C-alpha cells in the first residue's frame, strides 16, 4: 500500500471530502474476527463470547505532503452507533503501526516490542493516540501529545474516517519518512453489536505502507 505525495495544506489533508481522495489509490483490506483464544488470560469472560467480527473489509487510502500523513478509511455500517445510553457502545476504528521491527499486530505487540495506534470512536470529540505492548496493556494518550487529529462522516450506510498526524513527533510514536516502508494494521468495532476491546474485526497482520519519496 502506498501514500502518494501531494501538495495540500494540513487543514485540507484531514478533510473526508477533499478532492484528492477521488484520485488517490485505494486498497481493500480484508478483516477477520480477533481469535478469542488470544484473550483467555486477560478476560475469560470476553473470550467466552465469539459473536464479534461482522465487518469483513475496510477501504484504505493514504497521502502525505512531506510534513503530515493523512489516512482515510471507510467501512460499511448501516447505522451509526454512539454511546447514547449506559448500555450502548460506539463504532470505532484504529490504525496501528509497529514501534519495533519484530512487533506482531495480532497481539498488539509484546513487552519490549511496542505498537502505536490511532483510535477514533464515534461521538468522541478527539481521537486517542494509543501505545501497547501486548493485549490488555494498551494505554490511551491525549491526541495532543502527537498532534493527531481525526474527522468522520457517516452517510449512506458507511463510515469514512480520516486521521492526520505530522510525519515525525517528539513523543514515543510511529515515525514516517518519504521513501521508507512501515507496517500498518487495522481494527474496526461495531458498536451496535457491543464490540469493544478485542471483540472486533481486525486485519490480524501488518501490511506494508510506503510513503512516496
Amino acid at each position: 500500500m502506498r501514500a502518494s505525495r501531494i501538495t495540500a495544506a494540513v487543514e485540507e489533508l484531514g478533510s473526508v471530502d477533499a478532492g484528492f481522495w477521488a484520485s488517490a489509490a485505494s486498497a481493500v483490506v480484508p478483516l477477520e474476527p480477533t481469535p478469542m483464544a488470544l484473550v483467555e488470560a486477560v478476560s475469560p469472560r470476553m473470550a467466552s463470547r465469539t459473536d464479534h467480527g461482522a465487518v469483513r473489509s475496510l477501504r484504505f487510502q493514504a497521502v502525505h505532503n512531506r510534513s503530515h500523513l493523512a489516512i482515510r478509511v471507510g467501512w460499511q455500517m448501516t447505522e451509526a452507533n454512539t454511546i447514547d445510553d449506559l448500555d450502548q457502545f460506539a463504532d470505532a476504528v484504529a490504525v496501528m503501526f509497529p514501534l519495533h521491527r519484530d512487533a506482531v499486530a495480532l497481539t498488539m505487540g509484546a513487552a519490549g516490542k511496542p505498537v502505536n495506534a490511532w483510535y477514533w470512536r464515534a461521538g468522541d470529540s478527539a481521537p486517542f493516540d494509543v501505545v501497547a505492548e501486548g493485549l490488555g496493556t494498551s494505554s490511551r494518550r491525549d491526541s495532543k501529545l502527537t498532534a493527531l487529529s481525526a474527522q468522520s462522516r457517516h452517510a449512506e450506510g458507511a463510515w469514512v474516517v480520516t486521521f492526520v498526524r505530522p510525519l515525525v513527533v517528539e513523543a514515543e510514536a510511529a515515525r514516517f519518512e518519504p521513501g521508507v516502508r512501515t507496517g500498518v494494521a487495522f481494527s474496526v468495532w461495531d458498536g451496535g453489536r457491543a464490540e469493544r476491546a478485542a471483540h472486533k474485526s481486525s486485519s490480524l497482520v501488518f501490511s506494508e505502507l510506503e510513503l512516496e519519496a
Partner: protein
Amino acid sequence: MTYSPAGKKSTLMTSRRQLATVIDLNKCLACQTCTVACKGLWTKHPGAEHMRFANVTNEPGAGYPRQWRKLGGGYEGAKPRPGRCPSLSDYGGGPRRFNHEQVTRQGAGQRAHLQLLDSDGEPPTWGYNWDEEVGGGAWPNPYYINLPRKCNHCSKPACVDACPKGAIYKRESDGIVLIDQDRCSGHRFCIEACPYKAIYFNPVTQKSEKCIECFPRVDQGIAPACNRQCIGRARHYGYLDDESGDVYKLVEQWRVALPLHPEYGTLPNVFYVPPLSPQAFDPDGKLLDEMRIPMEHLVELFGAEVPRVLTTLQAEIAKQKAGESSELIDLLVGRVWLDRFGGFTGDPAHRPGERDE
C-alpha cells in the same frame, strides 16, 4: 504483591486479608441513611447522578438497578455466566426537575400542578426504590424485606476477572476492590460480569465506577460511611479473620450471617442475618404457627443455610427471654455502638489521633 496494572489476573484477584460487612435484616428500617451517606461522599460529580453505591430496596421487588438479577453475570460453575449492562432508565433515569417554569411563568398555574418530571420532561414511571413496600404475599399475609446492598468486595470478584485492561484489583492488605480510573477504558465487561450490578458507567468520563468501601476512611481507621451512619445499628464491620470482632463472630463462629445469592459464585463479603417473620394469619384472622415470609423466598436469597440460622436465632432469643444471657443476641443488639466496627472506630469529624473530648 501490590497492584501493578500489568499484574497477573490471579494476583489482582486475591488478597491477604478481607474486610467484610454484616447487615442484620431484622434491624434494617429502610431509612436510606446509608444510601445518602454514600451519595453525599462519593457520587455527586458529573455523570454519577444515577449511581448509588449503597442502596436499599424491598424484597420481593425489581430492586436497583431494575431487575438486576435478570441481567446475568457471575459464574455458572467455573464458567462466566453471560451478562448485560443496565440502561439509564433501569437506574431511574437522569436527575429529575420540578416544572417550576411551567407553573410560575407560562401562565399555566391554573392547569398545571407542581410536579417532579423525568429528565425527558415526562412524569416518571420508574425510579429508585419505586416499588417500596409493595412487597409480596397475599392478604392477610403480605410481607416485604428491606435489602441494603453495596459492592460485596468479593473473594472471587467476577469484575476483576472480566476486565481486559487489568484496571480492577483487590487491595492486597484488605481485599477492597477498586477500579484504577487511569487504566479503565469504559469497556464495561465488569458491569456485565458483576451479578450484583454494583459497577456503574459514568457517561461523562466514559469510565466505570464502583463502591470504594470508603478506603480513604478505612485507611485512617474509620468505618465506611454506610456502616457507621446506619441509624438502625444494623451493620457490623471488620476483618473476617479478626476473632475478636463482631464480623468473625457472626459469620464464622455463630454462622448466622449469609451471603446474598451465593450461587452466583463470586464469594461475596457482605453477609446478611436473615429476617425472622411475624406469625402468619389464617383467613379468619387467627394467628398461625407459621412464618409470614415464605422460607423458599429466604432460601432463594441466602441459600440453604437459612432454616438453620433462623432456628439458632429463635433459640437464642428464647434463652434471653428465659433470663439467661446470649452472646449472639448481645452481639446483634450491640449496646455499645462503636463495638460493632471491628476496631474501625475513628471519627471522621476529627483528625487521625485527635481525641473526642
